[in-house]
């Protein structure tokens, strides 16, 4: 048993030492879980087709074609899905409860999307904002569907 404890202690030290370096790597906001038809992530200047398992980062925009749908699960268990011809930007995503950092801004730019709140909505509901072009949604839970009309 003390052997296991020692191993765990050593692991903790290694992780502790690695933490500052890891903090400089971008941490994904979430991962793609479902894809139907054509779905893309727009990151900077590049637009790439997504597949299940792909990481999504803050500042990424999800976009679907006319036959597309995509669903992601974020690190705090928030779920977001887009129907066809839709576009949502993960404008801001910070989830570090231990260090006191929480915040999420999703911009619903086009089409239809569904948001299901996760842990962040329980820990700090005021840190979440769903932005449609003509109105902003504050969430106390749990499920919100938004259609931006064109």
């Amino acid at each position, binding site marked *: *048993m003390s052997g*296991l*404890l020692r*191993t*765990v*202690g050593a*692991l*903790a030290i290694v*992780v502790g030492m690695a933490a500052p370096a890891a903090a400089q790597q971008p941490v994904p906001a979430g991962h*793609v*879980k*479902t894809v*139907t038809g054509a779905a893309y992530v727009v990151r900077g200047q590049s637009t790439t087709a997504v597949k*299940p398992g792909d990481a999504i980062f803050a500042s990424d925009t999800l976009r679907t074609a006319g036959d597309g*749908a*995509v*669903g*992601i*699960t974020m*690190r705090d*268990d928030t*779920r977001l*899905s*887009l*129907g*066809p011809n*839709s576009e949502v930007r993960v404008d801001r995503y910070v989830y570090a*409860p*231990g260090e*006191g950092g929480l915040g999420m801004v999703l911009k*619903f*730019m*086009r089409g*239809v*999307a*569904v948001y*299901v*709140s996760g842990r962040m909505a329980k*820990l700090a509901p005021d840190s979440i*904002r769903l*932005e*449609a*072009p*003509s*109105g*902003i*949604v*504050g*969430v*106390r*839970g*749990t*499920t*919100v*569907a*938004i*259609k*931006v*009309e*064109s």
Partner: protein
Amino acid sequence: MARAWGGSRGLQLGLIALLLAGCGGKHVSPATPVAPPAPAVIVLLPDPETQVTGRIVVHNEFGSIDVSSARGSLRTTPGTAPGPVTTMSAEDVTRLFGEALAALPPAPRHFTLQFKFESDALTDESAALVPTILDAVKALSVPEVVIIGHTDTMGEAKSNLALGLRRANAVRSILVQAGLPPATVDVTSHGEADLLVKTRDNTPEPRNRRVEITVR
């Protein structure tokens, strides 16, 4: 107060969309007037798993409105306050949002493991959960397993962050030994920042000394 967007960013996106569309061969000058922000329909839905309906507040610079009823729905339009709230039929929810709803990932599942007092061995109850956790992982096509260590509020927040990480790593070892693929696992600590039972600082509380596992 946060303002609804749709200014220069909206113009840029509009231009990009037009350029990408590339049809008509008509040049778009940057001086093209900004289209007003698009209206939107916002609907509060019951939680897909618990069926509990939460609450949202919708605002823009002209006003604010609460929605707390199942399928409570409203429109936001530029230049006016959001509202009024009406109830959208279940048929219309499916018609408008069916494809997005169908694309929602499965709900994350949560398990809480506790340790025997002053030990790194799981309680019998928690040890019995291990096969259930592995089954939940196997059911997913692209599984992620997040192991989060938590502590009570005894001692310093910083040392509790480290203690939570030690507990989480102990659980990781147990699950990997039981057959969990290590590549799917992420280990972290929330220390005393996410209490199961709310207490004052420096309060011993066994229920807060736990490791939570999320399978999603």
